[in-house]
């Protein structure tokens, strides 16, 4: 999957999360920063944990070096790619 595909995947996933419930798919795809999404830094870690449960069956541990990357959408997308790449179970597309 390319970066754009991952951005769409992130948008689809965030729309299923309580903290992304009020955002439209288009808003998420267009957003550049976490702040634009109106999601706090701690809540974005929760989103990441939920993503790991959903797509990596909980087999990946959140790494501290990922946390600063969660401030912008490109960084978030990059972390999601890393999670999918290091998941023990095959990533669901």
């Amino acid at each position, binding site marked *: 999957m390319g970066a754009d595909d991952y951005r769409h995947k992130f948008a689809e996933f965030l729309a299923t999360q309580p903290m992304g419930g009020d955002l439209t798919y288009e808003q998420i795809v267009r957003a550049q920063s976490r702040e634009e999404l109106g999601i706090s830094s701690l809540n974005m*870690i929760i989103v990441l944990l939920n993503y790991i449960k959903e797509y990596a069956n909980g087999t990946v541990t959140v790494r*501290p*070096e990922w946390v600063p990357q969660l401030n912008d959408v490109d960084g978030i997308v990059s972390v999601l790619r890393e999670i999918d790449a290091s998941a023990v179970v095959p990533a669901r597309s």
Partner: protein
Amino acid sequence: MRKEIKVAESSIETATQGLTAEQVDFFKENGFLGPFDLYSEEEAPLVWSQGMIEMVTSANKPHNSTIINYDRHLDCDALSKHIAHPTIVHKLRSLMGEDIMCWKTHIFEKEPGATGTGWHQVEAFTVFESATVSYPSLRYTEESTAPTQELTVWTAFSNADRDHACLRFLPGSHKQWYYDETKPMSYNVENKSHDFFGYDYAELKLDKDWDPNKHEIVDMELKAGQFVIFLAKCVHGSRPNTSADKRVGMASRYVSPSVRVYEHIDRLSGFGDSISLDKHGCVMVSGEDKYGHNRIYEKNLNGFTFPKVESNGR
């Protein structure tokens, strides 16, 4: 008048050493001392990020507020380690002796564009139960001639220079009271003069004509991973955050175990929220508790054993 005062550590100092006699004298005279190196600039944000992850994943939190960010050393292993870091503890010992108890931590984040924190001065950390009823968080049960009844260690987990809301001190101001911390303040987050977390600390000034900005001011610039030690009684505040980056710091507060903590207080309110102190406890980071005044935790709420620096320096 602004003046640079910094006491650099000796290049031969190791993590197991305390303060020099010169540094102790400086602290007694000025009420603060730093900066000191704790984590590298690369390590500091990782320690903080690990703390954030644990704040989210913690199974047993000290309270449920996401607004009042006190005491997360009680459930986050990275912060449990931090408060008892040997580099910190050895320096505290030089100022307050062997028996040292951490009673509180407080996270201070300043978003880009945030205003500075107004000048303030505390020692008993008075808590108001109502507009007229207040109790001290700390009751000192022993007389002390040392100017070190309580000590605060403020660690920068991101850069905290002049553009990034560094702390500021009025040197020597711990020697007298400029404010009356036992009086209530009005709360109004919209008012610009309410620059102390929504309160106007200037309302507590003993001499209404006294202007702290005419006092000598020291800007304590810290790199990520550095800390400063100070007496909360030393008048302090912070510059605004004029940068594009969030500034993150954490204050860890220490007293002797002879001090009674939250003796008549079971809840804390502030920032539009309130927390129970049911799970609050203190942590001995050095020495012994010979008093039994307070609940002492040896493990954090998730079972991690708090590190403790042994008396022989190991």
